[in-house]
């Protein structure tokens, strides 16, 4: 047992956590900022109030528009603390979670997949060493990374296998994707519409999606494959961003990638980048 625990908890290079923390702040900011437009229409209203499972906040507290403004703004204080880093990072994350969820739970109807994924990612970051500075020179417990790997295996694996098993034919011939590309809300993006009546492309894109999502939980653990799989993931999310209107989902999904990347690969990339910058500076000085 001790041997297993030793292997599981062997410290790993922690530089990826810093990148993930900055990405989280940026994406959470972009996700939360537009909500101000909903204050007085969906947040802080007295007529369209809902209390339904799993959100019963309105049974105890219905926000006025002023309260909704306050809660919305307080979430940014948390993001500011997270951005500052150091000892403020983890309390900042908790402040962000508390106030952003107060706003979401008060609305109670439109909690999106990216809100849930952002929260899972936040928990992963809380379990990681984001409260420390100078992480590129440190090795820390991989626990938060195991947590995020599990979350992403579940995310990609379940969505991939559901597609494969529930709507096999429609995914294999590209039809499911084609119809989603012209969805009145999620679709109708210029590139997506153009692709939607070209079965060659929709079939190829569907196969790529199925292969990536269904194989992710198996392949992500293989060190040699890990960086290429994540590169494919960036391609998948870039494709979703270009062809569909799913809000900040594509960006939310990429926040954890610097942590999901094998730490030694990440360290090698980080060192190469530093060497390249140093060489450039030396060249300029000469």
């Amino acid at each position, binding site marked *: 047992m001790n041997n297993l*625990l030793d292997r*599981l*908890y062997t*410290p790993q290079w922690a530089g990826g956590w810093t990148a993930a923390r900055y990405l989280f702040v940026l994406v959470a900011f972009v996700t939360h900022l537009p909500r101000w437009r909903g204050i007085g*229409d*969906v947040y802080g209203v007295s*007529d*369209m*109030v*809902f*209390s*339904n*499972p*799993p959100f019963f906040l*309105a*049974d*105890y507290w*219905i926000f006025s528009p002023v309260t909704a403004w306050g809660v919305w703004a307080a979430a940014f204080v948390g993001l500011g603390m997270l951005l500052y880093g150091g000892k403020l990072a983890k309390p900042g994350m908790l402040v962000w979670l508390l106030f952003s969820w107060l706003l979401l739970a008060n609305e109670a*109807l*439109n909690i*999106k*997949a990216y809100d*849930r994924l952002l929260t899972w990612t936040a928990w992963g970051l809380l379990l990681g060493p984001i409260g420390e500075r100078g992480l590129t*020179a*440190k*090795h*820390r*417990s*991989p626990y938060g990374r195991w*947590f995020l790997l*599990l*979350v992403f295996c*579940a*995310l990609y694996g*379940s*969505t991939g296998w*559901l*597609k494969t*098993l*529930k*709507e096999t034919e*429609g995914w294999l011939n590209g*039809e*499911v*994707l*084609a*119809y989603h*590309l*012209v*969805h*009145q*809300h*999620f679709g*109708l993006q*210029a590139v997506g*519409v153009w692709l*939607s009546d*070209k079965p060659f492309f929709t079939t190829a894109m569907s196969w790529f999606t199925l292969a990536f999502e269904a194989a992710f939980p198996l392949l992500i653990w293989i060190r040699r494959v890990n960086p290429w799989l994540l590169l494919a993931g960036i391609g998948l999310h870039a494709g979703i961003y270009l062809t569909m209107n*799913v*809000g900040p989902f594509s960006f939310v999904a990429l926040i954890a990638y610097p942590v999901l990347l094998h730490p030694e690969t990440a360290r090698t990339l980080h060192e190469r980048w530093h060497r390249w910058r140093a060489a450039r500076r030396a060249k300029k000085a000469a």
Partner: protein
Amino acid sequence: MTKGEDRRTTPRWLQLPGLLLLIALAGYYWTAYRSVYSKTPPRIAVRNPYTFWFGTWKMFTMKERYHVTMEAEALVEGQWESFDLDALYPYRWESGYRYSRSVFRRHGPRMRTLANATCGRYADAHGTPPAMLRFHKIKWRKTLGSTKQPRGKKRRESSTLLLEWDCNRGLDLPQGRVL
């Protein structure tokens, strides 16, 4: 490993509870997956359907050949007039307006709340309070390869009455508020 590297890990006493937590998380996700996939979902998921909502990732899975939207009419001075429902509730997500998702339309209390709120918002916007409201579900076939999504008989358009609402009827909201 370089000599003098700063290396630290989880304290020994926390390692086993941490491992157990990861195993529990894997079990949670597996049950969440089965609750969506299986024809006979686990009993715990049937009894508490929202327990697994947070870990369920069913996104764009099924084929959807049809657009579905909701339209409304108001009875004003004895005449039924259609009006722009979306203009009364302007905020929208990428999934549409607050009431756009199918789970909203299928849920009676939510539809009644929308109806009652619309009586008030219509009166504020148009200056005349409606006597009644009607909500219709409109369904028509999608057109691939086109940003225009034409409706009509050719696209098998159909309309279903979802709710007829008397604006004089009261409605209890959370905390016993009456609109």
